[in-house]
């Protein structure tokens, strides 16, 4: 499988990465090198092998349902380019979430 320029353009757009034509020209072969390497990995027979989530054999740690954080809006807003009355302020968005 190889990646064409249109797919690369689409992935860039979905990732909100701005790429010029020249950059796309340069990146597509690079990305294809990685793709080919992954392709090679799929030659290994993995039937009946469970996906491996980690190599240390550890379990997901859960926490108790306790309030241990939050309560400091100023800290959260400290790096915001713009804020007002405790809100982050961003350019107006018309399209809705998905």
């Amino acid at each position, binding site marked *: 499988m190889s990646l064409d320029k249109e797919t690369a353009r689409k992935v860039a757009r979905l990732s909100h990465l701005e790429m010029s034509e020249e950059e796309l020209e340069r990146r597509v072969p690079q990305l294809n090198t990685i793709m080919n390497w992954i392709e090679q990995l799929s030659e290994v027979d993995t039937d009946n092998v469970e996906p491996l989530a980690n190599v240390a054999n550890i379990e997901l740690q859960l926490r108790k349902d306790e309030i241990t954080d939050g309560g400091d809006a100023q800290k959260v807003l400290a790096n915001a380019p713009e804020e007002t009355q405790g809100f*982050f302020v961003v350019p107006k968005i018309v399209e809705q979430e998905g």
Partner: protein
Amino acid sequence: MTYLIKGETGDWEVVIGMEVHAQVIANSKLFSGAATNFGAEPNSQVSIVDAAMPGMLPVPNEHVVAQAIKTGLGLNSKINHTSVFERKNYFYPDLPQGYQISQFEHPIVGEGVIEIDLPDGSTKEIGITRLHLEQDAGKSVHDQHPSKSFVDLNRSGCALMEIVSEPDIRSPEEAVAYLSKIRMILRYLETCDGNMDEGSMRADVNISVRKLGDELGTRAEIKNVNSLKAVQQAIDYEVPRQIEIIEDGGKVVQETRLWDPAKNETRSMRSKEEAQDYRYFPDPDLLPLHVSQEQIDEIKAALPELPDQKKHRFMGAFGLSLYDASVLIAERERAQYFETAANGNDAKLTANWVINELLGALNKDENKAITQSPVSAEHIGALTALISDNTISGKIAKDVFAEMYKTGKKPADIVEEKGLKQVTDTGAIETIIDEVIAENPDNVAAYKGGKDKLFGFFVGQVMKKSQGKANPAAVNELLKAKLS
């Protein structure tokens, strides 16, 4: 009854599936220790995990996991021993991570089925496809500034359960009944408060139409359907829209549409199809979630009686109709009230009084909840007991009830104070009958001459003279004897 919409080219069937987002009742968020209270000051309940500061690690809340399992069991669904958190990638200012941690290929809860109660008194089974855990997004405020939006991340990272149904729903009524039943189950389980006004329960409705027997049509996903009424209205708007498109030779576009309650219409939300490309992949910050059978069994053993179990028990043990049982189980507190009132009394009679008189009165009284009732369950029970043992008639009981509602007094005290005790003493009733006969010689003659209808007149006169207190059965019997 099959619900079909008439089009120009024939009858159309409506196919609906629903996605319900339910905020999990928990003190803290799905992956952080920030609080989850509704209506707090903006950004006052935000940890640096929720604000997606670099390097932060999400750690799942064990109580939220237990709540999801509990809900899955309440939906008669399979609990998966292994589930996986994945990243759903999209950009929006109220989603600081740039992705939502959700579950995709391996949800915590798999297939199940629930029963819905329809207005015509029938029931129907609706399949549950899955329930998965995910983070909620923050909230954007668009109307405070002409060119800016304001973002509050308090809701960001709160735990949501997304409950997905099979496309088994065939009418707006079924959709409303489904959503009501889901809300009822969540409230019984105390895993979500079900408050649609506050957005802690939200619904997306997937709608398509087809000719009977055809393959499934292309669906539109309607978002922002945030009340039972809106579900009905959104379907009523969307179905004719799709039929019109198809009958005019067009094609329904698979898209997300927004329900606008102010304009009473759905409208397209996205133009670019690729915006739907979420590029899910397992979250490398989170290992798979394992749930043991012991944990599932423990939660199962502690489940409360669920609405449908209660409904069937009320029908079986108390002989109530499906309708009465459905009304009584609609709220856990209402069912509890009824059971307390019916304890040791005629259950059917008690059900009638709770449903017709009490709920009616509460409705008229600013739509009060049963927990605010001025009449206690014990007092309603005592009132039905007074009817059952013939101390008062059903008619007098209505007056007693009105007084109970006003004063909160015991029914027996009201009956005593106002002297409303039913007269069953035949001697006393006979005296009244004799008076009535003496006062109405013309009617007596007419009755004896064959005007049978006048019997009702005599009953009325006797009841009036007794101030409604004479036992109606005794009056009938004695009158018949005297007049024959």
